[in-house]
């Protein structure tokens, strides 16, 4: 029974952290149309920087190396991790959010992700290389008296509360003037430019806010697990977040959360129980990645708006009398004006 309770807790924490990742990506892609092809790198930045701020200085005699090791209290270290993700988002934005096609931003995010992945793996002085950081201080571990289930359930509550705050914030942002500008830029940046908005600044806000939120998820992840190595943030993980957002419904925060339930929890956890093939241990994870990739492509083909589409904005309309004025809206309504072509 206690194993089962611990498992349920882990599932819930996974769900809540993936909700946070997907909400972050939704602000970037769903609101502002920013293609971030390395979502998971921001999670890793948040997690790693939390770790090196909260851990004591590296002990060379253990052959474990990392930068900083400031031994800060965990609330301050959490903020440091979150800020680090935001700063990375800002730097990428500085390079690629000028008036360039969206291809360039996608290329820069992907390049940065590949680069940081290689660096943090190969340079073992940064975050202990491929071995990664472990025994990272977990807050509330002492409160829980080191009882694993108590700790897990405390963490379910914490991550749940953080997730609800992020969700509330994302909704506030959506209906705020800033959120409206973001969505307008997503639809047509030139028009928004013409109305005198500083589109660079608005897109940068979306980039930084989204990155920061993904960083929050990263901090929660490492606080719960207590360890992170490069194997935990491969490109495949980025796809899980993308698939979750596209399946759930881009631009819709409830959709984003539904998507992470379907993809990150039900699909990803469900396939964990498929027995491994002894001769090729990678077969099941490889197939899982193939399905995730197919899910991304198929959802764009069959239902690009997702399971829960973004609600159409409603505007106050003047009650126009003129029949020609009323036909202005669409081609089908234009029949009276249509001539044989």
């Amino acid at each position, binding site marked *: 029974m206690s194993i089962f309770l611990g498992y349920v807790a882990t599932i819930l924490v996974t769900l809540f952290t993936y909700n946070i990742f997907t909400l972050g990506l939704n602000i970037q*892609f769903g609101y502002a*149309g920013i*293609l971030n*092809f390395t979502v998971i790198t921001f999670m890793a930045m948040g997690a790693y920087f939390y770790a090196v701020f909260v851990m004591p200085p590296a002990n060379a005699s253990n052959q474990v190396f990392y930068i900083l090791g400031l031994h800060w209290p965990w609330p301050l270290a959490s903020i440091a991790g979150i800020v680090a993700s935001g700063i990375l988002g800002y730097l990428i934005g500085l*390079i*690629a959010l*000028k008036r*360039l*096609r*969206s*291809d*360039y931003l*996608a*290329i*820069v995010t*992907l*390049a*940065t992700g*590949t*680069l940081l992945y*290689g*660096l943090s793996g*190969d*340079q073992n002085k940064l975050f202990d290389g491929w071995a990664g950081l472990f025994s990272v201080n977990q807050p509330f571990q002492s409160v829980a008296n080191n009882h694993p289930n108590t700790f897990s359930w405390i963490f379910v509550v914490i991550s749940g509360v953080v997730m609800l705050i992020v969700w509330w914030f994302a909704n506030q942002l959506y209906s705020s003037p800033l959120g409206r500008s973001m969505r307008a830029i997503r639809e047509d940046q030139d028009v928004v430019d013409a109305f005198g908005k500083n589109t660079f600044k608005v897109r940068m806000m979306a980039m930084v806010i989204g990155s920061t939120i993904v960083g929050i998820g990263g901090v929660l992840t490492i606080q719960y697990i207590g360890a992170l190595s490069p194997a935990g943030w491969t*490109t*495949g993980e980025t*796809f899980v977040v*993308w698939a979750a957002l*596209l399946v759930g419904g881009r631009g819709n925060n409830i959709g984003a959360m539904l998507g992470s339930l379907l993809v990150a929890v039900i699909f990803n956890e469900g396939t964990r129980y498929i027995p491994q093939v002894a001769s*090729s241990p*990678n*077969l099941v994870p*490889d*197939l899982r*990645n*193939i399905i*995730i*990739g*197919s899910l*991304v*492509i198929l959802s*764009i*083909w069959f239902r*690009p708006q997702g399971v829960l589409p973004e609600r159409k904005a409603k505007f106050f309309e003047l009650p126009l009398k003129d029949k020609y004025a009323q036909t202005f809206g669409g081609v089908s309504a234009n029949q009276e004006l249509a001539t044989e072509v």
Partner: protein
Amino acid sequence: MKLFLLTLGFGFVSASIYALLSVGLSLQFGVTNFVNFAYGAYLGVGMLLTYTFSATLGLPFWLSIVLATIGTGIVSMLISEFILSPFVKRRKSLFYMLIVTFGLSLILDNVLQIIYGVGFNEYPIGQSSPVTIGPFSFTGNQLIIIAIAGIVMIGVHLLLSRSRLGKAMRAMSDNADLARASGIDTNMVTRWTWFISGALAGLGGIVLALNIVSFQTTSGDALLFVIFAAVILGGIGQTYGAMLGALIIGVVTEVSTVFISSAYKQDIAFLVLVIMLLVRPQGLIPAKGKA
């Protein structure tokens, strides 16, 4: 000075590999007007098909290279025909095209991994002794790489300047709608472009494998952003620009090893990419309306 010239020589080898790859990417971008994020996986297709033909089936090595190059071209064409073109015909926005190719990269990488596993492979050919030419020193394979790249670059030049297909490709690159209106069979041109782009990616993957000797399915992926750097440096969609970009990136990354650890080679390419995007995002030879 001696070391500098030696690394300059290696720079030419890298530049040759990058030239094949960036010309392939740039040609396709010019014609279809979206970036193919699955391009890194095409390198893997080429290098591993060669492995199958030469090591598993025991065909002569040169024949394996030819077959694998054509094979990768066909794979690329089929992917375009059955996956990408339907999306283009539905007039999906650029966002979605990029996400589709990004998803495709995950699928292709994992298909390759299921077939070939995660281990390292080597081609069944001996390593030749180094040849010294003036101040440079190359292995026999590296000389072959430079020769292949040289011949292919001349071929691409002749294709673009002399052949009907090349002219049609340039026309589509300038304005696809106008090209269609003036009677160019744009579907056919797109098909051929994907074939050529895939074949160049495959060939680039093979020569990359020749240069690094032992390779695995994901060896091409790490190189993807180096290729992007070369393509953006030259001006995205510009074939001759891509050649120039490849030459600069190849030489700069190799010569940088004189001053800093060779572990940072790719970081140098990234630095060039960043500087270029900040200073001159349209590239050295800008293409109209592509940036």
